[in-house]
């Protein structure tokens, strides 16, 4: 285990993300919950938007899956990826179950149409989704490093804080029941980076992709936090980059 080529890189990415995990805009939501400043509508907004993001992972992973070829990685890597797809699907189901159980909407089709659950192109959520989908053309360990050792660690951090602050047992269960799978995704990411990132150029690509994913996830969290707290603030402008080819 000690001589795994990407061990130091995995540790570096994990520690950096852990440091950032409790400094996201969601801390404002957690604080508002603690102060009793949220209501049922806030919860519907939160779960509605998280459901919208979760269901977009079918689209993201669909693109990533196309980038996997025969014999490019051992079966274990593909198993771990497929397990992650199933888990993401489970989380999508949990959010939808919660919305339906709360009486937010009578059917799945109604949730799709509702402003809290609809996918909007001009949003930080969409920007984050397309940012991840764009990683489809990169080698699998790099995009797994970007997501599993970046936003996934940040997500686990704020979600643990959120679950702790929530008083509603049902709502708490929605988040708490995801912890094991979220930790598993982080461990999967660690394993893949440790084992398959060999060259310095790959390590630099991992660092870059992870930073981009976290930047765009942070923008989504900013939009989510404002939406849950009823501020409706526009997301900060996305960084522009000149296209030269």
């Amino acid at each position, binding site marked *: 285990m000690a001589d795994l080529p990407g061990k130091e890189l995995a540790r570096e990415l994990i520690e950096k993300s852990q440091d950032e995990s409790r400094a996201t805009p969601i801390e404002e939501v957690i604080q508002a919950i603690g102060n009793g400043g949220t209501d049922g509508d806030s919860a519907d907004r939160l779960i509605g938007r998280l459901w919208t993001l979760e269901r977009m992972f079918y689209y993201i992973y669909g693109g990533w899956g196309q980038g996997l070829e025969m014999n490019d990685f051992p079966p274990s890597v593909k198993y771990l990826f497929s397990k992650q797809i199933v888990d993401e699907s489970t989380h999508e189901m949990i959010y939808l179950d919660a919305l339906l159980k709360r009486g937010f909407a009578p059917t799945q089709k109604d949730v799709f149409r509702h402003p809290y659950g609809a996918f909007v192109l001009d949003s930080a959520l969409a920007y984050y989704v397309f940012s991840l989908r764009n990683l489809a053309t990169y080698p699998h360990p790099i995009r797994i490093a970007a997501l599993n050792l970046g936003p996934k660690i940040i997500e686990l951090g704020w979600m643990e804080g959120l679950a702790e602050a929530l008083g509603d047992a049902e709502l708490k269960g929605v988040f708490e*029941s995801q912890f094991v799978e979220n930790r598993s995704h982080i461990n999967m990411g660690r394993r893949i980076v440790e084992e398959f990132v060999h060259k310095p150029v790959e390590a630099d690509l991992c660092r870059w992709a992870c930073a981009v994913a976290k930047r765009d996830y942070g923008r989504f969290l900013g939009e989510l936090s404002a939406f849950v707290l009823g501020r409706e603030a526009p997301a900060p402008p996305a960084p522009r980059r000149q296209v030269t080819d």
Partner: protein
Amino acid sequence: MPSLKIDHQRCTECRMCYIVCREIDINAVYVALEPLHRIEIDLQKCTYPGCTACLMYCPAEGSIVEVATGRSMVPPPPEAWQEV
């Protein structure tokens, strides 16, 4: 009124029951909020024997049973087949 439950010893968690129940807007099948995230049936929402859609798609023999009798409903017995 007869009702259904999942036998977790036999269920493979393929979630076909969840998918069909949701597609027809009954929403009686749900994911339990525990780490294993097993599939359960909400007896308040399930309309069995009015609807038997989950039984028609379940691939795992004996994984959905009648609560009162413990009788396996997969594969569905002849009386479960009905015109919609």
